[in-house]
């Protein structure tokens, strides 16, 4: 049996015995067969000594059991690594940040405590999956939507705490922003409620976010200051209709005004869905399994990246391909969103040569046929179809065994996209990373762009080592340009926290001050997002 770092076998055995007394013997997992299930399926350290491994796992069923676990862990200084469903693949999965931690698996706490249709909110436990919440709503015929990530088998609480996102309107697709109220077990086992939940008998816990006094919810995300055992979420009232409209502009340089107009429309909430940016002329982003652009197109792309897009524009014109397109999306009353699209067209028409394609107006709810052909996540429908896209085919002869996301935030401007491509294309070449010919940013978040690079994880340690080295270089290069990652796997959490270094790492030092105050024995998820307890600071692997 593995033991947590710094814990004697005798103490660990005593702690396990007390865990068994607290939650039942069958929910304390110590065999290799059971504990190995918590390995990260997409671990960038696959099969290497540094691969994160748990020493045991605990699966409590109630808040009281979580409190008991925290008290026992404090007594024996057992590090606990909390997961909800542990399915944030590409960002660490269920493996602990510090090898030897005991995984605190909350998936048995899977109760949907409330869904309020009238005021559109839900209160759930950590083990509730998007499928569970969706099923709860569908079975009761409630006219509210959830916002789901892709894939949708994770937990709304887990995803929100890791600051993940989805695909519907701006108000809901930032999952942490859409939460309202938390219940948290602190390291000493004490129970805390945030927002209006701090008032005994409050009738508005899920209706007003901040309550009174400092709003502390943020410190429980991407962190290790508490164990969240309940969380409220605002849901989206089922809209009447959905509409898309596509804007096409002819020149590479048109990205600058295109993004300016897009920003105005999104920031004004004229269009409220997640916009999709692409480049028909550059054939980017390529759909899964598509062949790469022809070498002559890649050559034109490289010239454009270097600052000369004239030939690429001429190529696009000769083929009838726009330099850029953006599909904007609207949810709301059919008449209103049709008018919003007309207004958007007026704004985009200021760019010379702009063309428009009217999308299909979808009356909601979806028909069975629409449900089959449309992108389900844009309609709040959880699914796992993304796992069927990596199949081997002529263009993908060697599917990988997973991926690790490199996901920097860059400014919402055309100039930033041009600059980022110059930097990332060069870095991709220099370090042998599979960077696409031209990287198109995503519009998940309001006000900023997100680049997402999925670098492969394989079962070949040498390849993984090379990818990790390149990944780290990329993080450093991005930081030199002021671009930081929004989220990452434990393998890179220290590195990336180190890039948020303003004023001699004042932010991390503040995190550490908090950590020492609220978790003096350092039992909660040591190392998560680069925050280490005092006794492991500077001594961890």
């Amino acid at each position, binding site marked *: 049996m593995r033991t947590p770092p710094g814990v004697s076998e005798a103490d660990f055995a005593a702690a396990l015995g007390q865990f068994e007394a607290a939650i039942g013997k*069958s929910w304390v997992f110590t065999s290799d*067969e*059971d504990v190995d*299930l918590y390995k990260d*399926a997409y671990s960038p350290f696959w099969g290497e000594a540094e691969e994160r491994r748990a020493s045991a796992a605990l699966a409590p069923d109630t808040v009281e059991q979580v409190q008991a676990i925290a008290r026992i862990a404090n007594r024996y200084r057992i590090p606990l690594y909390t997961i909800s469903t542990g*399915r944030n693949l590409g960002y660490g999965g269920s493996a602990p940040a510090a090898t030897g931690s005991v995984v605190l698996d909350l*998936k048995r706490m899977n109760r949907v405590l409330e869904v309020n249709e009238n005021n559109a909110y839900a209160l759930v436990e950590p083990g509730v999956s998007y*499928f569970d919440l969706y*099923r709860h709503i569908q079975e009761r015929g409630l006219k509210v939507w959830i916002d789901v990530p892709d*894939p949708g*088998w994770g937990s709304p609480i887990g995803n929100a705490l890791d600051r993940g996102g989805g695909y519907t309107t701006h108000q809901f697709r930032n999952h942490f922003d859409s939460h309202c109220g938390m219940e948290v077990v602190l390291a000493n086992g004490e129970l805390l409620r945030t927002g209006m939940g701090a008032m005994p008998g409050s009738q508005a816990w899920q209706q007003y976010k901040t309550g009174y006094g400092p709003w502390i919810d943020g410190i429980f995300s991407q962190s290790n200051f508490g164990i969240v055992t309940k969380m409220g979420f605002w849901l989206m009232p089922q809209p009447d209709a959905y509409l898309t409209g596509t804007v096409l502009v002819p020149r590479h340089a048109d990205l600058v005004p295109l993004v300016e107009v897009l920003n105005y429309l999104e920031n004004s909430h004229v269009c409220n869905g997640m916009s999709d940016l692409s480049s028909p002329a550059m054939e980017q982003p390529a759909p899964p399994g598509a062949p790469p652009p022809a070498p002559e197109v890649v050559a034109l792309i490289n010239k454009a990246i270097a600052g000369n897009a004239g030939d690429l524009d001429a190529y696009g014109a000769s083929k009838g391909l726009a330099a850029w397109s953006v599909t904007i999306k609207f949810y709301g009353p059919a008449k209103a969103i049709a008018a919003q699209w007309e207004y958007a067209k007026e704004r985009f028409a200021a760019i010379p040569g702009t063309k428009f394609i009217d999308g299909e107006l979808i009356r909601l709810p979806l028909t069975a046929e629409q449900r089959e052909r449309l992108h389900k996540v844009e309609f709040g429908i*959880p*699914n*796992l*179809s993304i*796992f*069927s*896209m*990596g*199949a*081997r085919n002529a263009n993908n002869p060697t*599917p990988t065994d997973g991926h690790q996301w490199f996901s920097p935030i860059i400014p919402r401007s055309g100039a930033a996209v041009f600059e980022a491509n110059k930097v990332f294309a060069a870095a991709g070449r220099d370090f042998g990373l599979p960077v696409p010919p031209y990287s198109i940013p995503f519009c998940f978040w309001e006000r900023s762009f997100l680049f997402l690079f999925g670098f492969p994880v394989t079962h070949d340690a040498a390849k993984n080592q090379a990818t990790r080295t390149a990944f780290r270089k990329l993080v450093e290069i991005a930081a030199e340009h002021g671009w930081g990652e929004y989220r990452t796997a434990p393998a890179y959490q220290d590195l990336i926290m180190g890039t948020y270094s303003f004023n001699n790492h004042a932010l991390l030092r503040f995190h550490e001050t908090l950590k020492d105050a609220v978790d003096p024995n350092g039992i909660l998820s040591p190392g998560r997002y680069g925050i280490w307890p005092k006794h492991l600071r500077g001594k961890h692997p």
Partner: protein
Amino acid sequence: MVTRRDVVLGAMAVSALPAIAGAWVSPKPGSTLEGGSALYKVIYDERFPLSVAFGHEALRAGLAVHAIRGDMTDLWYDDLYPQWRRQPLAIAGLTAHGPLFCLERLSWDFGMRVATRDARPGELISWVIAPGTRA
């Protein structure tokens, strides 16, 4: 298109299923699950001729089958989840890695494990997921 080779290989894969599943789910080799069937469902993927042949052979052998096209969400949401909540029962398949990856992880929450996993021609894997040792 399903070729003669697909049919032969599919039949071979099917012929091993009941024995494999029966041996895994019961301490008595050859015995069956409650309800008389060693397998709850056999899963095949319509995108692959060999998998289609496998599904057809399973049907001919009297097994309940379910076709997917890469995405196993509906199978999970409408069929397996309600069934496994009532009673975890074994399933088998000849699919690509993606659907197996999902089904394996989802089955863990019901105390189930992958009992067999064999690479087949192309990228296909024949597999059995069955109730494990932990409830």
